[in-house]
Protein backbone atom coordinates (compact mmCIF):
# COMPACT_ATOMS: atom_id res chain seq x y z
CA UNK A 1 0.00 0.00 0.00
CA UNK A 2 1.34 3.41 -0.86
CA UNK A 3 0.10 6.95 -0.31
CA UNK A 4 -1.05 7.24 -3.89
CA UNK A 5 -3.49 4.36 -3.52
CA UNK A 6 -4.66 5.68 -0.17
CA UNK A 7 -5.32 9.13 -1.60
CA UNK A 8 -6.99 7.83 -4.74
CA UNK A 9 -9.42 5.74 -2.74
CA UNK A 10 -10.05 8.55 -0.27
CA UNK A 11 -10.64 11.13 -2.97
CA UNK A 12 -13.04 8.90 -4.84
CA UNK A 13 -15.06 8.58 -1.65
CA UNK A 14 -14.96 12.30 -0.94
CA UNK A 15 -16.02 13.28 -4.45
CA UNK A 16 -19.14 11.16 -4.44
CA UNK A 17 -20.10 12.34 -0.97
CA UNK A 18 -19.65 16.02 -1.80
CA UNK A 19 -21.43 15.69 -5.14
CA UNK A 20 -24.38 13.89 -3.53
CA UNK A 21 -24.68 16.63 -0.93
CA UNK A 22 -24.33 19.50 -3.34
CA UNK A 23 -26.83 18.13 -5.84
CA UNK A 24 -29.27 17.05 -3.13
CA UNK A 25 -28.98 20.53 -1.60
CA UNK A 26 -29.65 22.04 -5.01
CA UNK A 27 -32.80 19.98 -5.50
CA UNK A 28 -34.03 20.56 -1.97
CA UNK A 29 -33.60 24.31 -2.28
CA UNK A 30 -36.11 24.22 -5.13
CA UNK A 31 -38.85 23.66 -2.54
CA UNK A 32 -38.30 27.07 -0.94
CA UNK A 33 -41.39 29.07 -1.86
CA UNK A 34 -43.62 26.22 -3.05
CA UNK A 35 -43.94 23.80 -0.14
CA UNK A 36 -47.31 22.41 0.98
CA UNK A 37 -47.18 24.59 4.09
CA UNK A 38 -44.91 27.54 4.87
CA UNK A 39 -43.18 25.63 7.67
CA UNK A 40 -41.97 23.10 5.11
CA UNK A 41 -40.46 25.76 2.85
CA UNK A 42 -38.47 26.80 5.88
CA UNK A 43 -37.49 23.25 6.89
CA UNK A 44 -36.32 22.33 3.39
CA UNK A 45 -34.51 25.66 3.24
CA UNK A 46 -32.47 24.76 6.32
CA UNK A 47 -31.76 21.27 5.06
CA UNK A 48 -30.58 22.63 1.71
CA UNK A 49 -28.24 25.04 3.48
CA UNK A 50 -26.80 22.25 5.61
CA UNK A 51 -26.20 20.05 2.56
CA UNK A 52 -24.48 22.73 0.52
CA UNK A 53 -22.46 23.66 3.60
CA UNK A 54 -21.39 20.04 4.10
CA UNK A 55 -20.39 19.70 0.47
CA UNK A 56 -18.29 22.86 0.72
CA UNK A 57 -16.30 21.41 3.63
CA UNK A 58 -15.64 18.22 1.71
CA UNK A 59 -14.67 20.03 -1.50
CA UNK A 60 -12.27 22.07 0.63
CA UNK A 61 -10.83 18.82 1.96
CA UNK A 62 -10.33 17.67 -1.63
CA UNK A 63 -8.59 20.93 -2.39
CA UNK A 64 -6.16 20.22 0.44
CA UNK A 65 -5.53 16.85 -1.14
CA UNK A 66 -4.44 18.57 -4.33
CA UNK A 67 -7.68 19.02 -6.26
CA UNK A 68 -8.92 22.35 -7.62
CA UNK A 69 -10.69 24.74 -5.25
CA UNK A 70 -14.33 24.28 -4.30
CA UNK A 71 -15.65 26.88 -6.74
CA UNK A 72 -13.83 25.31 -9.67
CA UNK A 73 -14.96 21.84 -8.69
CA UNK A 74 -18.59 22.83 -8.61
CA UNK A 75 -18.77 25.31 -11.42
CA UNK A 76 -16.37 23.99 -14.05
CA UNK A 77 -16.41 20.18 -14.00
CA UNK A 78 -18.06 18.27 -16.81
CA UNK A 79 -21.02 15.99 -16.37
CA UNK A 80 -18.94 12.79 -16.35
CA UNK A 81 -16.66 14.19 -13.65
CA UNK A 82 -19.58 14.41 -11.23
CA UNK A 83 -19.99 11.26 -9.13
CA UNK A 84 -23.40 11.79 -7.52
CA UNK A 85 -25.95 8.98 -7.50
CA UNK A 86 -29.03 9.13 -9.70
CA UNK A 87 -31.40 9.44 -6.75
CA UNK A 88 -30.27 12.97 -5.90
CA UNK A 89 -30.45 14.19 -9.50
CA UNK A 90 -34.11 13.46 -10.07
CA UNK A 91 -36.38 16.52 -10.28
CA UNK A 92 -38.26 17.57 -7.15
CA UNK A 93 -41.51 15.95 -8.24
CA UNK A 94 -44.35 15.89 -5.75
CA UNK A 95 -44.13 16.05 -1.98
CA UNK A 96 -44.58 12.29 -1.56
CA UNK A 97 -41.52 11.68 -3.69
CA UNK A 98 -39.64 14.48 -1.93
CA UNK A 99 -40.27 13.04 1.53
CA UNK A 100 -39.45 9.49 0.47
CA UNK A 101 -36.19 10.51 -1.21
CA UNK A 102 -35.37 12.65 1.81
CA UNK A 103 -35.97 9.70 4.15
CA UNK A 104 -33.83 7.28 2.11
CA UNK A 105 -30.99 9.67 1.44
CA UNK A 106 -30.74 11.12 4.93
CA UNK A 107 -30.66 7.71 6.57
CA UNK A 108 -27.80 6.70 4.27
CA UNK A 109 -25.99 9.95 5.04
CA UNK A 110 -26.41 9.47 8.74
CA UNK A 111 -25.07 5.92 8.74
CA UNK A 112 -22.21 6.86 6.43
CA UNK A 113 -21.09 9.59 8.81
CA UNK A 114 -21.62 7.36 11.81
CA UNK A 115 -19.16 4.93 10.22
CA UNK A 116 -16.78 7.70 9.21
CA UNK A 117 -16.37 8.92 12.79
CA UNK A 118 -13.87 6.03 13.03
CA UNK A 119 -12.05 6.85 9.80
CA UNK A 120 -8.26 6.63 9.72
CA UNK A 121 -8.35 9.93 7.84
CA UNK A 122 -8.78 12.16 10.86
CA UNK A 123 -9.99 15.34 9.18
CA UNK A 124 -12.88 13.29 7.82
CA UNK A 125 -13.56 11.60 11.14
CA UNK A 126 -13.76 15.00 12.83
CA UNK A 127 -16.11 16.36 10.20
CA UNK A 128 -18.28 13.24 10.50
CA UNK A 129 -18.76 13.82 14.21
CA UNK A 130 -20.00 17.33 13.49
CA UNK A 131 -22.26 16.36 10.59
CA UNK A 132 -23.89 13.53 12.49
CA UNK A 133 -25.37 16.02 14.92
CA UNK A 134 -26.89 18.06 12.11
CA UNK A 135 -28.18 15.12 10.10
CA UNK A 136 -29.95 13.84 13.20
CA UNK A 137 -32.43 16.71 12.74
CA UNK A 138 -32.91 15.89 9.07
CA UNK A 139 -33.72 12.31 10.04
CA UNK A 140 -36.15 13.53 12.65
CA UNK A 141 -37.84 15.71 10.03
CA UNK A 142 -37.97 12.93 7.43
CA UNK A 143 -39.30 10.34 9.89
CA UNK A 144 -41.94 12.69 11.26
CA UNK A 145 -43.33 13.52 7.84
CA UNK A 146 -43.12 10.02 6.51
CA UNK A 147 -45.09 8.77 9.51
CA UNK A 148 -47.66 11.58 9.27
CA UNK A 149 -48.32 10.92 5.61
CA UNK A 150 -48.07 7.12 5.65
CA UNK A 151 -50.56 7.07 8.52
CA UNK A 152 -52.65 10.00 7.27
CA UNK A 153 -55.68 9.39 5.08
CA UNK A 154 -56.30 6.88 2.27
CA UNK A 155 -54.88 9.17 -0.39
CA UNK A 156 -51.69 9.94 1.46
CA UNK A 157 -51.11 6.29 2.38
CA UNK A 158 -51.48 5.29 -1.26
CA UNK A 159 -49.21 8.07 -2.39
CA UNK A 160 -46.48 7.15 0.08
CA UNK A 161 -46.60 3.50 -0.99
CA UNK A 162 -46.21 4.46 -4.67
CA UNK A 163 -43.42 6.84 -3.77
CA UNK A 164 -41.69 4.01 -1.93
CA UNK A 165 -42.07 1.71 -4.95
CA UNK A 166 -40.51 4.36 -7.15
CA UNK A 167 -37.72 5.55 -4.86
CA UNK A 168 -36.59 2.25 -3.31
CA UNK A 169 -34.84 0.85 -6.41
CA UNK A 170 -33.33 4.27 -7.12
CA UNK A 171 -31.94 4.43 -3.59
CA UNK A 172 -29.79 1.39 -4.34
CA UNK A 173 -27.62 3.64 -6.48
CA UNK A 174 -26.36 5.30 -3.30
CA UNK A 175 -24.49 2.07 -2.53
CA UNK A 176 -22.93 1.48 -5.94
CA UNK A 177 -19.46 0.17 -5.14
CA UNK A 178 -16.26 1.95 -6.02
CA UNK A 179 -13.18 0.19 -7.45
CA UNK A 180 -11.44 0.97 -4.16
CA UNK A 181 -13.70 -0.75 -1.63
CA UNK A 182 -10.91 -3.05 -0.51
CA UNK A 183 -8.40 -0.27 0.10
CA UNK A 184 -11.04 1.77 1.92
CA UNK A 185 -11.67 -1.15 4.24
CA UNK A 186 -8.11 -2.34 4.76
CA UNK A 187 -6.86 1.19 5.38
CA UNK A 188 -9.78 1.85 7.73
CA UNK A 189 -10.84 4.88 5.74
CA UNK A 190 -14.43 3.66 5.45
CA UNK A 191 -16.20 0.38 6.15
CA UNK A 192 -17.50 0.26 2.59
CA UNK A 193 -20.74 0.53 0.65
CA UNK A 194 -21.85 -3.05 1.34
CA UNK A 195 -21.63 -2.53 5.10
CA UNK A 196 -23.43 0.80 4.80
CA UNK A 197 -26.17 -0.76 2.72
CA UNK A 198 -26.86 -3.57 5.16
CA UNK A 199 -27.26 -1.21 8.15
CA UNK A 200 -29.40 1.09 6.00
CA UNK A 201 -31.68 -1.77 4.93
CA UNK A 202 -32.19 -2.83 8.49
CA UNK A 203 -33.03 0.64 9.79
CA UNK A 204 -35.22 1.81 6.93
CA UNK A 205 -37.14 -1.46 6.72
CA UNK A 206 -37.94 -1.38 10.37
CA UNK A 207 -39.26 2.16 10.14
CA UNK A 208 -41.18 1.64 6.91
CA UNK A 209 -42.90 -1.42 8.33
CA UNK A 210 -43.76 0.41 11.54
CA UNK A 211 -45.73 2.97 9.51
CA UNK A 212 -47.50 0.30 7.47
CA UNK A 213 -45.58 0.48 4.18
CA UNK A 214 -44.48 -2.55 2.15
CA UNK A 215 -40.94 -2.81 0.77
CA UNK A 216 -41.27 -3.51 -2.96
CA UNK A 217 -39.70 -6.74 -4.20
CA UNK A 218 -38.44 -5.21 -7.39
CA UNK A 219 -34.84 -6.37 -7.79
CA UNK A 220 -34.01 -4.47 -10.96
CA UNK A 221 -31.63 -1.77 -9.82
CA UNK A 222 -29.96 -1.15 -13.18
CA UNK A 223 -31.58 2.25 -13.62
CA UNK A 224 -30.02 3.48 -10.39
CA UNK A 225 -26.44 2.51 -11.23
CA UNK A 226 -23.70 4.43 -13.02
CA UNK A 227 -23.71 7.72 -11.13
CA UNK A 228 -20.52 6.85 -9.26
CA UNK A 229 -18.79 6.25 -12.60
CA UNK A 230 -19.96 9.54 -14.06
CA UNK A 231 -22.99 8.31 -16.01
CA UNK A 232 -26.08 10.30 -15.21
CA UNK A 233 -29.80 10.55 -15.84
CA UNK A 234 -31.28 12.81 -18.51
CA UNK A 235 -32.06 15.32 -15.72
CA UNK A 236 -28.45 15.93 -14.78
CA UNK A 237 -27.34 17.82 -17.89
CA UNK A 238 -29.95 20.57 -17.53
CA UNK A 239 -29.27 20.76 -13.79
CA UNK A 240 -25.55 21.28 -14.38
CA UNK A 241 -26.27 23.89 -17.03
CA UNK A 242 -28.32 25.76 -14.46
CA UNK A 243 -25.51 25.62 -11.89
CA UNK A 244 -23.08 27.04 -14.42
CA UNK A 245 -25.41 29.57 -16.02
CA UNK A 246 -24.06 32.75 -14.46
CA UNK A 247 -20.59 31.59 -13.54
CA UNK A 248 -19.62 30.35 -16.98
CA UNK A 249 -21.85 32.09 -19.48
CA UNK A 250 -21.69 35.65 -18.27
CA UNK A 251 -18.00 36.06 -17.63
CA UNK A 252 -15.78 33.14 -16.58
CA UNK A 253 -12.89 35.44 -15.64
CA UNK A 254 -14.95 37.36 -13.11
CA UNK A 255 -15.38 36.79 -9.44
CA UNK A 256 -18.96 37.07 -8.25
Amino acid sequence: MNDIDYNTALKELLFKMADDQYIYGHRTSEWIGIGPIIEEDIAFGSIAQDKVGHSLNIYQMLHQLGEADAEKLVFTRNENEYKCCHLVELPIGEYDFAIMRHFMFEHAEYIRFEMLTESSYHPLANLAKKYKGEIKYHIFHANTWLKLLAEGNEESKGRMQSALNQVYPMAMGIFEESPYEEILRSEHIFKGEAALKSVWMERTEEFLQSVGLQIPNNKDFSEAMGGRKGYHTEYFGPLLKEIKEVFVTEDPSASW
Partner: protein
Amino acid sequence: MYGGGFVDEKERQKDPVVQDDPIKLAAFEARIAAGEKVEPGDWMPADYRRQLIRMIEQHAHSEIIGALPEGTWITRAPSFKRKMAIMAKVQDEIGHAQMLYSACETLGKSREQMLNDLLSGKSKYSNVFNYPAITWADVTVIGFLIDAAAIVNQVLNSKGSYGPYCRALERICYEEAFHLKQGQDAFAALALGTPTQKALVQEALNRWWKPIIHFFGPSDKMSVHSEKLMRWKVKMASNDDMRNQFLSTYVPKIQELGLSIPDPNLCYHEESNSWTFSDPDWDEFFRVINGDGPCNKERLAVRWWAEEHGRWVRNAIINPNERYVVPLA
Protein backbone atom coordinates in the same frame (compact mmCIF):
# COMPACT_ATOMS: atom_id res chain seq x y z
CA MET B 1 -38.54 42.39 2.30
CA TYR B 2 -41.77 44.28 2.00
CA GLY B 3 -43.53 46.74 -0.17
CA GLY B 4 -44.47 50.16 0.58
CA GLY B 5 -47.33 50.43 3.01
CA PHE B 6 -49.47 51.71 0.18
CA VAL B 7 -53.01 52.46 1.31
CA ASP B 8 -55.49 51.81 -1.49
CA GLU B 9 -58.15 54.49 -1.01
CA LYS B 10 -60.54 52.86 -3.47
CA GLU B 11 -60.51 49.68 -1.39
CA ARG B 12 -61.08 51.64 1.79
CA GLN B 13 -64.08 53.43 0.35
CA LYS B 14 -65.80 50.05 -0.05
CA ASP B 15 -65.55 49.35 3.68
CA PRO B 16 -68.84 49.57 5.54
CA VAL B 17 -69.01 52.54 7.88
CA VAL B 18 -69.12 51.42 11.48
CA GLN B 19 -70.00 53.91 14.19
CA ASP B 20 -67.62 53.24 17.05
CA ASP B 21 -68.66 53.97 20.63
CA PRO B 22 -67.39 57.57 21.05
CA ILE B 23 -66.32 57.09 24.66
CA LYS B 24 -64.32 53.96 23.87
CA LEU B 25 -62.87 55.62 20.82
CA ALA B 26 -61.67 58.61 22.82
CA ALA B 27 -60.05 56.33 25.40
CA PHE B 28 -58.41 54.31 22.61
CA GLU B 29 -56.99 57.40 20.94
CA ALA B 30 -55.70 58.68 24.29
CA ARG B 31 -53.85 55.40 24.85
CA ILE B 32 -52.20 55.61 21.45
CA ALA B 33 -51.28 59.25 21.95
CA ALA B 34 -49.64 58.22 25.22
CA GLY B 35 -47.51 55.72 23.30
CA GLU B 36 -49.21 52.57 24.60
CA LYS B 37 -49.39 49.43 22.47
CA VAL B 38 -52.71 47.91 21.54
CA GLU B 39 -52.93 44.18 22.27
CA PRO B 40 -55.20 41.54 20.65
CA GLY B 41 -57.90 41.41 23.33
CA ASP B 42 -58.19 45.19 23.66
CA TRP B 43 -61.07 47.19 22.29
CA MET B 44 -60.23 48.80 18.95
CA PRO B 45 -62.20 50.71 16.31
CA ALA B 46 -63.55 48.53 13.50
CA ASP B 47 -61.64 50.52 10.93
CA TYR B 48 -58.39 50.14 12.88
CA ARG B 49 -58.76 46.37 12.89
CA ARG B 50 -59.71 46.27 9.22
CA GLN B 51 -56.86 48.46 8.07
CA LEU B 52 -54.29 46.56 10.15
CA ILE B 53 -55.48 43.24 8.80
CA ARG B 54 -55.18 44.60 5.29
CA MET B 55 -51.71 45.98 5.90
CA ILE B 56 -50.19 43.03 7.78
CA GLU B 57 -51.72 40.60 5.33
CA GLN B 58 -50.31 42.52 2.36
CA HIS B 59 -46.98 42.57 4.09
CA ALA B 60 -47.07 38.79 4.67
CA HIS B 61 -48.05 38.14 1.06
CA SER B 62 -45.22 40.39 -0.10
CA GLU B 63 -42.80 38.17 1.83
CA ILE B 64 -43.88 34.89 0.25
CA ILE B 65 -44.32 36.34 -3.22
CA GLY B 66 -41.10 38.32 -2.74
CA ALA B 67 -39.28 35.05 -2.18
CA LEU B 68 -40.06 33.98 -5.74
CA PRO B 69 -38.02 36.29 -8.02
CA GLU B 70 -34.87 35.65 -5.98
CA GLY B 71 -35.77 32.05 -5.25
CA THR B 72 -35.47 31.10 -8.90
CA TRP B 73 -31.83 32.21 -8.74
CA ILE B 74 -30.77 30.00 -5.83
CA THR B 75 -29.84 27.18 -8.19
CA ARG B 76 -27.91 29.56 -10.44
CA ALA B 77 -26.06 31.60 -7.79
CA PRO B 78 -22.51 31.92 -9.11
CA SER B 79 -20.45 30.99 -6.03
CA PHE B 80 -20.70 29.08 -2.78
CA LYS B 81 -20.79 32.30 -0.81
CA ARG B 82 -23.65 33.78 -2.85
CA LYS B 83 -25.55 30.53 -2.90
CA MET B 84 -25.42 30.13 0.87
CA ALA B 85 -26.39 33.78 1.37
CA ILE B 86 -29.34 33.77 -0.99
CA MET B 87 -30.70 30.47 0.31
CA ALA B 88 -30.60 31.82 3.85
CA LYS B 89 -32.16 35.08 2.74
CA VAL B 90 -35.04 33.62 0.79
CA GLN B 91 -35.72 31.23 3.65
CA ASP B 92 -35.80 34.21 6.04
CA GLU B 93 -38.39 35.93 3.86
CA ILE B 94 -40.66 32.89 4.11
CA GLY B 95 -40.08 32.99 7.87
CA HIS B 96 -41.18 36.63 7.85
CA ALA B 97 -44.40 35.62 6.12
CA GLN B 98 -44.98 33.00 8.79
CA MET B 99 -44.49 35.54 11.63
CA LEU B 100 -46.72 38.09 9.92
CA TYR B 101 -49.53 35.65 9.19
CA SER B 102 -49.45 34.78 12.89
CA ALA B 103 -49.51 38.47 13.88
CA CYS B 104 -52.46 39.02 11.56
CA GLU B 105 -54.31 36.00 12.93
CA THR B 106 -54.48 37.77 16.31
CA LEU B 107 -56.87 40.21 14.60
CA GLY B 108 -59.25 37.43 13.63
CA LYS B 109 -58.36 36.41 10.07
CA SER B 110 -56.93 32.92 9.59
CA ARG B 111 -53.87 32.11 7.49
CA GLU B 112 -56.03 29.99 5.19
CA GLN B 113 -58.40 32.88 4.54
CA MET B 114 -55.48 35.18 3.83
CA LEU B 115 -53.92 32.73 1.39
CA ASN B 116 -57.26 32.23 -0.32
CA ASP B 117 -57.60 35.98 -0.77
CA LEU B 118 -54.10 36.12 -2.22
CA LEU B 119 -54.94 33.39 -4.74
CA SER B 120 -58.23 34.96 -5.75
CA GLY B 121 -56.52 38.30 -6.30
CA LYS B 122 -58.61 39.93 -3.58
CA SER B 123 -55.64 40.88 -1.45
CA LYS B 124 -52.57 42.55 -2.81
CA TYR B 125 -48.84 42.38 -2.34
CA SER B 126 -46.02 44.76 -3.14
CA ASN B 127 -45.90 45.82 -6.76
CA VAL B 128 -42.13 45.37 -7.09
CA PHE B 129 -42.49 41.60 -7.12
CA ASN B 130 -44.50 41.76 -10.30
CA TYR B 131 -41.32 42.64 -12.16
CA PRO B 132 -38.92 39.94 -13.36
CA ALA B 133 -35.39 39.24 -12.16
CA ILE B 134 -33.86 38.75 -15.59
CA THR B 135 -30.18 38.37 -14.69
CA TRP B 136 -28.10 37.70 -11.60
CA ALA B 137 -27.57 41.46 -11.39
CA ASP B 138 -31.31 41.96 -10.87
CA VAL B 139 -31.02 39.71 -7.84
CA THR B 140 -28.33 41.96 -6.40
CA VAL B 141 -30.44 45.08 -7.06
CA ILE B 142 -33.36 43.48 -5.24
CA GLY B 143 -31.15 42.29 -2.39
CA PHE B 144 -29.60 45.70 -1.94
CA LEU B 145 -32.14 48.35 -2.88
CA ILE B 146 -35.52 46.69 -2.47
CA ASP B 147 -34.52 45.30 0.90
CA ALA B 148 -33.15 48.74 1.81
CA ALA B 149 -36.44 50.39 0.88
CA ALA B 150 -38.33 47.75 2.82
CA ILE B 151 -36.20 48.43 5.87
CA VAL B 152 -37.08 52.14 5.81
CA ASN B 153 -40.72 51.18 5.91
CA GLN B 154 -40.43 48.36 8.40
CA VAL B 155 -38.33 50.25 10.94
CA LEU B 156 -40.97 53.00 10.96
CA ASN B 157 -43.83 50.52 11.25
CA SER B 158 -42.13 48.73 14.14
CA LYS B 159 -42.85 51.90 16.15
CA GLY B 160 -46.56 51.64 15.37
CA SER B 161 -49.39 50.98 17.80
CA TYR B 162 -50.31 47.32 17.35
CA GLY B 163 -48.21 45.17 19.71
CA PRO B 164 -48.02 41.84 17.81
CA TYR B 165 -47.13 43.57 14.53
CA CYS B 166 -44.44 45.71 16.20
CA ARG B 167 -42.86 42.69 17.87
CA ALA B 168 -42.82 40.70 14.62
CA LEU B 169 -41.27 43.69 12.86
CA GLU B 170 -38.52 44.04 15.42
CA ARG B 171 -37.37 40.50 14.70
CA ILE B 172 -37.81 40.99 10.98
CA CYS B 173 -35.75 44.20 10.95
CA TYR B 174 -32.95 42.40 12.73
CA GLU B 175 -32.80 39.83 9.92
CA GLU B 176 -33.30 42.43 7.21
CA ALA B 177 -30.10 44.12 8.33
CA PHE B 178 -28.24 40.96 7.21
CA HIS B 179 -30.12 40.90 3.93
CA LEU B 180 -29.07 44.44 3.23
CA LYS B 181 -25.46 43.63 4.02
CA GLN B 182 -25.31 40.63 1.71
CA GLY B 183 -27.30 42.46 -0.99
CA GLN B 184 -24.97 45.43 -0.91
CA ASP B 185 -21.95 43.13 -1.03
CA ALA B 186 -23.24 41.23 -4.08
CA PHE B 187 -24.23 44.49 -5.79
CA ALA B 188 -20.84 46.09 -5.10
CA ALA B 189 -19.02 42.98 -6.36
CA LEU B 190 -20.61 43.59 -9.77
CA ALA B 191 -20.25 47.36 -9.75
CA LEU B 192 -16.53 47.02 -8.96
CA GLY B 193 -16.02 43.92 -11.10
CA THR B 194 -15.21 43.34 -14.76
CA PRO B 195 -16.68 45.62 -17.46
CA THR B 196 -19.24 42.90 -18.26
CA GLN B 197 -20.34 42.72 -14.64
CA LYS B 198 -20.55 46.47 -14.33
CA ALA B 199 -22.69 46.71 -17.46
CA LEU B 200 -24.90 43.93 -16.16
CA VAL B 201 -25.61 45.72 -12.89
CA GLN B 202 -26.12 49.10 -14.54
CA GLU B 203 -28.71 47.56 -16.86
CA ALA B 204 -30.45 45.93 -13.93
CA LEU B 205 -30.49 49.22 -12.03
CA ASN B 206 -32.02 50.92 -15.06
CA ARG B 207 -34.75 48.27 -15.19
CA TRP B 208 -35.50 48.52 -11.49
CA TRP B 209 -35.39 52.27 -11.02
CA LYS B 210 -39.04 52.86 -11.85
CA PRO B 211 -40.34 50.09 -9.56
CA ILE B 212 -38.05 51.46 -6.83
CA ILE B 213 -39.55 54.94 -7.17
CA HIS B 214 -43.00 53.32 -7.15
CA PHE B 215 -42.14 51.33 -4.05
CA PHE B 216 -43.41 53.79 -1.43
CA GLY B 217 -46.58 54.56 -3.33
CA PRO B 218 -47.90 57.70 -5.05
CA SER B 219 -46.98 61.14 -3.88
CA ASP B 220 -48.77 62.51 -0.84
CA LYS B 221 -50.22 65.19 -3.09
CA MET B 222 -51.98 62.49 -5.10
CA SER B 223 -53.30 60.36 -2.29
CA VAL B 224 -56.22 61.14 -0.06
CA HIS B 225 -55.12 62.20 3.39
CA SER B 226 -54.62 59.31 5.74
CA GLU B 227 -54.63 61.48 8.85
CA LYS B 228 -56.69 59.05 10.88
CA LEU B 229 -54.33 56.17 10.11
CA MET B 230 -51.39 58.35 11.10
CA ARG B 231 -53.12 59.39 14.33
CA TRP B 232 -53.77 55.73 15.12
CA LYS B 233 -50.13 54.90 14.35
CA VAL B 234 -51.12 52.44 11.65
CA LYS B 235 -49.31 54.46 9.02
CA MET B 236 -46.15 55.96 10.46
CA ALA B 237 -44.87 58.29 7.76
CA SER B 238 -46.05 59.71 4.48
CA ASN B 239 -45.05 58.07 1.20
CA ASP B 240 -42.95 61.05 0.20
CA ASP B 241 -41.15 61.20 3.54
CA MET B 242 -40.17 57.55 3.27
CA ARG B 243 -39.06 57.92 -0.33
CA ASN B 244 -36.99 61.00 0.51
CA GLN B 245 -35.32 59.18 3.37
CA PHE B 246 -34.50 56.24 1.09
CA LEU B 247 -33.13 58.41 -1.72
CA SER B 248 -30.98 60.49 0.64
CA THR B 249 -29.34 57.37 2.02
CA TYR B 250 -28.96 55.23 -1.09
CA VAL B 251 -28.44 57.54 -4.07
CA PRO B 252 -24.96 58.48 -2.78
CA LYS B 253 -24.12 54.82 -2.14
CA ILE B 254 -25.05 53.89 -5.72
CA GLN B 255 -23.05 56.77 -7.15
CA GLU B 256 -20.01 55.99 -4.98
CA LEU B 257 -19.85 52.63 -6.72
CA GLY B 258 -19.52 54.36 -10.06
CA LEU B 259 -23.03 53.64 -11.31
CA SER B 260 -25.41 56.25 -12.61
CA ILE B 261 -29.02 56.81 -11.67
CA PRO B 262 -31.13 56.44 -14.81
CA ASP B 263 -33.08 59.66 -14.26
CA PRO B 264 -31.50 62.95 -15.44
CA ASN B 265 -34.15 64.88 -13.51
CA LEU B 266 -33.44 63.36 -10.14
CA CYS B 267 -32.62 66.31 -7.92
CA TYR B 268 -32.09 66.95 -4.21
CA HIS B 269 -33.43 70.16 -2.66
CA GLU B 270 -31.56 71.13 0.44
CA GLU B 271 -34.07 73.75 1.70
CA SER B 272 -36.87 71.17 1.90
CA ASN B 273 -34.66 68.10 2.36
CA SER B 274 -36.55 66.39 -0.43
CA TRP B 275 -36.13 64.96 -3.90
CA THR B 276 -37.81 65.52 -7.23
CA PHE B 277 -37.67 63.11 -10.16
CA SER B 278 -39.16 62.44 -13.58
CA ASP B 279 -42.76 61.32 -13.70
CA PRO B 280 -42.47 57.57 -12.95
CA ASP B 281 -45.77 56.80 -14.70
CA TRP B 282 -48.17 56.30 -11.84
CA ASP B 283 -50.69 54.83 -14.28
CA GLU B 284 -48.36 51.89 -14.63
CA PHE B 285 -48.23 51.59 -10.85
CA PHE B 286 -52.03 51.30 -10.71
CA ARG B 287 -52.15 48.93 -13.68
CA VAL B 288 -49.66 46.61 -12.03
CA ILE B 289 -51.35 46.72 -8.63
CA ASN B 290 -54.62 45.80 -10.28
CA GLY B 291 -53.13 42.68 -11.82
CA ASP B 292 -51.71 43.78 -15.13
CA GLY B 293 -47.95 43.76 -14.55
CA PRO B 294 -45.21 41.78 -16.28
CA CYS B 295 -45.24 38.94 -13.70
CA ASN B 296 -48.57 39.05 -11.83
CA LYS B 297 -49.87 35.94 -13.56
CA GLU B 298 -46.62 34.04 -13.19
CA ARG B 299 -46.33 34.83 -9.46
CA LEU B 300 -49.87 33.74 -8.70
CA ALA B 301 -49.45 30.66 -10.88
CA VAL B 302 -46.60 29.57 -8.61
CA ARG B 303 -48.80 30.07 -5.54
CA TRP B 304 -51.54 28.08 -7.27
CA TRP B 305 -49.08 25.27 -7.94
CA ALA B 306 -48.17 25.19 -4.25
CA GLU B 307 -51.85 25.31 -3.31
CA GLU B 308 -52.91 22.50 -5.62
CA HIS B 309 -49.90 20.23 -5.19
CA GLY B 310 -49.84 20.71 -1.42
CA ARG B 311 -53.55 20.17 -0.84
CA TRP B 312 -53.32 16.41 -0.31
CA VAL B 313 -50.57 16.96 2.25
CA ARG B 314 -52.64 19.46 4.22
CA ASN B 315 -55.71 17.21 4.02
CA ALA B 316 -53.70 14.26 5.31
CA ILE B 317 -52.40 16.06 8.38
CA ILE B 318 -55.54 17.96 9.31
CA ASN B 319 -57.18 17.03 12.57
CA PRO B 320 -60.95 17.09 12.01
CA ASN B 321 -61.58 17.75 15.70
CA GLU B 322 -59.48 20.88 15.75
CA ARG B 323 -61.28 24.23 15.77
CA TYR B 324 -59.82 27.50 14.68
CA VAL B 325 -59.03 29.70 17.67
CA VAL B 326 -57.83 33.26 17.37
CA PRO B 327 -54.36 33.26 18.91
CA LEU B 328 -53.62 35.83 21.58
CA ALA B 329 -50.16 36.89 20.49
